């Protein structure tokens, strides 16, 4: 037996395993080593490379056939519109020589045409000339019903696009258009080449896989390789009109998740820029503290707000609850009283923004939070919480607690509200703190939350949709586009959702003010300029001050850049990569 044991030992000194393990260790060691050999290697010309991480990989470079932000942004590195919008909401010419206005004659007085003039001598990235005819073609391509173009709404109201000569693009609208900068503006509406895509219009767009994956551009970089749902590679465009771009190569890498994208920029330094970092604020702050990079935030128009039901949602009313009924069904205590104002005063918006939204939130007092020139300053008082003031306001109005249960009464009716939103941890935490603050001013709150697919789902048979609004208060995020007209139009009396229109319409809080409607009609007829800005601010103030909506948090999109990357100016109104041609590395 002892012999047997001995034999076993000597036979199995595990040579194979040892060898294999040794090989693995050697492999790992060789992996670690190049860190030194890299620097010691004879000076090969260093390739200046920019690595951009999008954790959602791009499916196609360009916004037309696949309208996701990732696709639009992958296209935006090379495709260009006539003009971009900068982070302040100001138009910046790209392919156009200047921004057309009424003053310089580019926009007609009747608001029916806008005439863009292209810069001289523009070339596509293959060296062929780029002309106004390419803009005409892009319009034909995108508006062809069988193309299935995701950017078709940028051509809303456009009846024709013409090119009287090689550098002039004339866009004609069907009616007076106060904000004519929709077609060919922003990364959602870039221009593509007729020579390249001429055969790809309509149903044929699907079959043009080769062209779709390698569009010619006019930007500072041009596409050299596109791997679907993975990585796009660009090089400096030799035919670019301006200063040659800084980087030799741009890598637009997709896939993975937001947290590891943040780590790659802020901790390992493998990437220079990471997009849309939906990561817990505390984790991001820890990563940023390592000092390798910086968190940056793009704000556009998204405002997390409370909507105050102007109609009576009492269950006892049956089908008539939350129905406007021509104004005969007002809310028992939220309309015509200072209650909504007191509720707004009791909220500490900074606490919510800082603790629950972190980098991605700022306290806000307006429902039109941007662009800058449209933002009212009349409501900024809301930035400071004022519970005493709210209590005093209610006391003065005679809304007091008569039966000593801690809840105030109005005409004998206790101020008890039901407050709904979608199921989401940040929203539930917001609900909880607001409930507490409202309790301090004698308002009782019942919290409800519904699954997002139900709440935003719009099923007319479900009682829990935001459109039906069968509670007193509800909370969600929305906001206008760069020109707020369409958003503001929704708050007119005619857009109140009700049974008769199957709850279609954007006046969700069911507020009706004839004066608002009148002012809105003026807005529709007022071209871009100071007068339009004044009107937008007034409309915003009317809505907020009437207590129809209580703005809470201005929500942004979080990104990260490495410290050495210069020129990044993160943009909420256009693609984040709108000025990628100006990015450079600090030497």
């Amino acid at each position, binding site marked *: 037996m002892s012999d*047997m044991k001995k*034999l*076993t*030992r000597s*036979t*199995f000194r*595990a040579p*194979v*395993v040892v060898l*294999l393990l040794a090989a693995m260790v050697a*492999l*790992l060691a*060789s*992996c*670690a080593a*190049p*860190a030194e050999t890299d620097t010691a290697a004879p000076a090969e010309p260093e390739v200046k490379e920019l690595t951009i*991480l999008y954790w*959602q*990989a791009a*499916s*196609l470079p360009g916004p037309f*056939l*696949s*309208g*996701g932000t990732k696709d639009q942004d992958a296209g935006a590195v090379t495709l260009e519109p006539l003009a971009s919008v900068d982070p302040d909401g100001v138009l910046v010419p790209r392919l156009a020589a200047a921004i057309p206005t009424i003053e310089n004659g580019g926009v007609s007085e009747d608001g029916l045409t806008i005439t863009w003039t292209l810069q001289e001598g523009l070339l596509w990235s293959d060296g062929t000339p780029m002309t106004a005819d390419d803009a005409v073609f892009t319009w034909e391509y995108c508006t062809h*019903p*069988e*193309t*299935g*173009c*995701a950017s*078709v*709404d940028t051509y809303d109201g456009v009846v024709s696009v013409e090119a009287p000569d090689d550098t002039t693009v004339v866009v004609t609208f069907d009616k007076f258009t106060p904000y004519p900068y929709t077609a060919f503006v922003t990364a959602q509406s870039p221009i593509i080449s007729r020579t390249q895509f001429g055969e790809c219009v309509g*149903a044929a*767009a*699907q*079959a*043009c*896989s080769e062209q*779709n*994956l390698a569009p010619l551009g006019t930007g500072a970089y041009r596409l050299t390789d596109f*791997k*679907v*749902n*993975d*990585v796009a*590679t660009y090089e400096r465009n030799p035919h670019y009109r301006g200063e040659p771009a800084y980087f030799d190569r741009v890598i637009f*890498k*997709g*896939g*993975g*998740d937001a947290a*590891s994208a943040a*780590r*790659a920029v802020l*901790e*390992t330094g*493998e*990437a220079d820029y990471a997009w849309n970092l939906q990561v817990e604020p505390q984790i991001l702050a820890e990563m940023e503290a390592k000092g390798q990079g910086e968190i940056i935030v793009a704000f556009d128009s998204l405002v997390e707000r409370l909507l105050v039901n102007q109609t009576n949602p009492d269950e006892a009313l049956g089908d008539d609850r939350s129905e406007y009924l021509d104004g005969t069904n007002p809310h028992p205590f939220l309309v015509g009283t200072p209650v909504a104002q007191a509720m707004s005063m009791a909220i500490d918006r900074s606490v919510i923004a800082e603790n629950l939204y972190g980098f991605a939130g700022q306290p806000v007092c307006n429902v039109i939070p941007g662009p800058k020139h449209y933002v009212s300053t009349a409501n900024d008082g809301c930035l400071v919480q004022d519970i005493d003031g709210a209590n005093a306001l209610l006391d003065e109005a005679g809304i007091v607690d008569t039966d000593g249960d801690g809840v105030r009464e109005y005409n004998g009716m206790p101020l008890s509200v039901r407050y709904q939103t979608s199921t989401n941890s940040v929203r539930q935490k917001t609900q909880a703190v607001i409930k507490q603050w409202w309790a301090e001013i004698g308002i009782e709150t019942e919290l409800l939350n519904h699954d997002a697919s139900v709440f935003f789902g719009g099923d007319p048979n479900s009682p829990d949709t935001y459109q039906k609004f069968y509670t007193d208060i509800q909370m969600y995020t929305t906001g206008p586009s760069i020109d707020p007209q369409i958003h503001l139009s929704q708050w007119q009396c005619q857009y109140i959702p009700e049974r008769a229109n199957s709850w279609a319409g954007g006046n969700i809080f069911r507020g009706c003010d004839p004066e608002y409607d009148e002012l809105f009609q003026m807005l529709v007829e007022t071209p871009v300029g100071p007068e339009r800005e004044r009107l937008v601010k007034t409309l915003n103030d009317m809505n907020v001050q009437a207590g129809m909506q209580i703005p809470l948090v201005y929500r942004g999109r979080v990104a990260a850049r490495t410290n050495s990357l210069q020129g990044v100016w993160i943009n909420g109104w256009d693609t984040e990569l709108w000025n990628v041609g100006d990015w450079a590395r600090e030497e």
Partner: protein
Amino acid sequence: MSRYLARRLLTAVPTLLAISMVIFAVLDLAPGDPTGALPETIRPEVRQMIREAMGLDKPMHIKYLLWLRQFFWNEPIGLLESALGIEIGDSESRLRITSWGSRGTPVFDLIAQRVPQTLWVVGLAYLISVLIAVPVGVISAVRQYSVFDQLGTLFSLIGYSVPTFFTGLLLIIVFSVNLNWLPSIYDTNLEVRDWRSLVAQLRQMAMPVTVLAFFQTAALVRFTRSSMLDNLTQDYVRTVKAKGFRERYVVIRHILRNSLIPVITLVALGVPTIFSGAIITEQIFRVNGLGALLISSIQVNDIPMIQTVTFIFAVLIVIFNLIADIIYGVLDPRIRYA
């Protein structure tokens, strides 16, 4: 044997047809809309136009028959054409299966783009795990309850029970964040041309391969060990030992050969999982393999892609089941097919 093979191949046809129908029906009936991933600012009418352009509004049986025709007729002919450089019939109008997520891009082009990465990373991990697991399992069994066996058991239990997303993250934090030795992002543009790029390739493969190999080795070690233990106590082993053969000879020529039969079957059955990729590991390290392709298609409801990739996996599973059965017959003389 050939009759058996023919019968198995014939029964595979209805099996695969049934599988394809089930996959298609499930995907078609499942809620979800490929335009759902588009920004909310895109209006419903525009979404409808996009859906029509994708051919989404056709009835299910038409879509299914069209897909069958594309998969079994159009794609093979296209392959033949490009392989031989000839043109068969009207190749211009022959529709290929195209992706919805990346509109118009042929699904098979994307799959072909992804296969090499999967083979490199997942395939290599599989190979390494077999190479490690078999000797470790054999030694563990022969020297049962020794320190080596105890350690082997410990590591294989850890490997088996710790999920890959955890080991992956752990390796990234240690080797990328703290030590800064290895890249955490897989560079899919890298082409191996010289020593330098080979080293770069090895460096970027090191972590995903280790994670996967660790996990797979664990399962295989346990299996090899128990299969060896079953054989160690058999009568024939005692007989051979009684004849006075050396231990090494007994183990390698007799015990190992017999105990490897079920192990080889298991390894063959596991080959399709190489192709289905390691979804989580590929996602963590941003390896653009088939698993990552599948997951990104699922995220955007790219049904033609999901359908095709899933079906290819089904085909591979059926084929490798057959191969495993045949190998079994070859290795074990007691089993004969007729």
